[in-house]
């Protein structure tokens, strides 16, 4: 792990006085390598390592008896600082219903996460409505309807030929009529470079003014995380992130990249396929995981 590797580097300097810039440089190379292997984006790593370097050439490391541990402590602190110190909860509207869009690339876990959020909201005493606004993927509406059945949460499924914005609008009006205070809109997976689908999302947001637009991103995403997150944020405006499939062994560096380029908080992590497998995001755990 990184701690061990840094200890190894600084070990050979024990008793030889202060650390030199070269020692620090070697240590920072290890940090850079660890972060790249954890899938943090190349440019984000560059900026991050520079911040660490500024602190590492200061007194706290140079005078330390265990400079390796000190550098790791700095890296850890900087990671937590970047990821966001506290859990940021869902932003519920003053005037119900709260409208939430789930967006992202194909296969990232949006539909499953919609189900998980419905359960989460209900456990918090709210009355969710699920809206199946994916009219493109085979059996997408059936998938959400099945999840709704499992949870005993109502699901609005599309009429034939309906457009996503119409389905979402109907969801909002049904929520008002039937006193649902949270509307969770599942959207079709889309490429951030698909101009029509990105425009569709932008129009949906402009027409319906969601309180939350959550990017559902896969924890095993590599360097591309910066491209897609930047495009979704620029195209429709994100208010939060959900990182899925964190129950695997992906290091999750995408978390850092996405946070760095969108400035939005990671609100939840998906930790399994079942609908109760959703956790509030706490930076501590992913920081240690990224460090490896």
């Amino acid at each position, binding site marked *: 792990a990184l701690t061990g590797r840094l200890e190894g580097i600084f070990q050979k300097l024990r008793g030889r006085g202060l650390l030199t810039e070269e020692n620090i440089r070697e240590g920072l190379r290890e940090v850079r390598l660890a972060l790249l292997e954890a899938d943090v984006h*190349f440019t984000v790593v560059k900026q991050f390592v520079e911040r660490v370097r500024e602190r590492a050439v200061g007194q706290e490391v140079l005078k330390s008896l265990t400079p390796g541990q000190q550098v790791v402590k700095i890296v850890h602190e900087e990671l937590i600082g970047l990821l966001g110190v506290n859990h940021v909860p869902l932003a519920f509207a003053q005037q119900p219903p709260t409208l939430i869009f789930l967006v992202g690339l194909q296969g990232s876990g949006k539909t499953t996460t919609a189900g998980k959020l419905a359960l989460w909201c209900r456990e918090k005493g709210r009355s969710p409505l699920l809206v199946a606004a994916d009219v493109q993927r085979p059996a997408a509406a059936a998938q959400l309807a099945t999840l709704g059945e499992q949870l005993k949460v109502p699901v609005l499924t599309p009429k034939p030929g309906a457009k996503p914005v119409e389905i979402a609008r109907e969801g909002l009006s049904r929520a008002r009529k039937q006193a649902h205070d949270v509307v969770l809109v599942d959207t079709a997976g889309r490429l951030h470079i698909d101009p029509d689908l990105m425009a569709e999302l932008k129009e949906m947001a402009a027409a319906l003014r969601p309180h939350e637009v959550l990017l559902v991103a896969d924890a095993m995403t590599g360097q591309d995380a910066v491209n897609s997150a930047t495009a979704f944020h620029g195209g429709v405006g994100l208010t939060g992130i959900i990182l899925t499939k964190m129950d695997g062994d992906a290091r999750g560096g995408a978390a850092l990249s996405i946070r760095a380029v969108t400035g939005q908080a990671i609100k939840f992590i998906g930790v399994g396929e079942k609908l109760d497998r959703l956790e509030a995001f706490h930076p501590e755990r992913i920081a240690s995981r990224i460090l490896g």
Partner: protein
Amino acid sequence: GVAGRRLDQELLEELEEALILADVGPQTAGNIVARLQEKAAREGIREACDLKEILRRILVEILSQGVPAPGPCPQAPRVIMVVGVNGVGKTTTIGKLAKRWVDEGSAVLLAAGDTFRAAAIEQLEIWGERARAQVVKHQSGADPAAVIYDALQAAKARGSQVVLADTAGRLHTKMNLMEELKKIKRVMGQVVPTAPHEVLLILDATTGQNAVSQVRLFHEAIGVTGLVVTKLDGTAKGGILLRIVDEFRLPVHYVGVGESPDDLREFDPEAFADSIL
């Protein structure tokens, strides 16, 4: 002179950065650039465009190391097991392959081996209609091995030439789910002794270094015979393939380039190398 050397260093760093941005991974990118540097030194290459061409050839060389599985078995049905982690495109890829082979005149049967995920069977049935391939299914929640067993029996009885077995997405780190795959494989062998003839691992091009762990654990569990990389119509380059093919010598058979039935191409190492650079 010194000026020429300086240019090489900067250029080499730029090429290494391009490889890392393509998900090649820092260690592998470093190794490839070192290999490029020594080759360029031996051949006295200094020009940027020549360096890039040498790099391109190195990439193609690495990507062509996959050892293809032995040829199609003489007796039908040819049984192909499709596996991979959640959401990578297994079911969609099965639909595309089915359509391709039905269009070429083969009788293809699809086994609805994902009995866990909501509407997985319905999704495969729609693909079966699109491809004009038969689907064998049980009810949701059934034992996947039982569905596969029935599907292979049906394929033998009906004279299908190919069986594509869909399985539920699963993380490679979940031991019990990997055991389930082993059981499915054993059951296949009970009906068709040489089955599965192919085990296709589907990888998502947007996946970073974790793809190596996926290949390693699926390969250790059931023996992967080939790879398919999906979602290359996005901006992700799938550079992790360089590390994977180098380490595991697995052939990449196809790439997925979209969500429609025809969005499947044979893997072309030259085109792939071009897209990375």
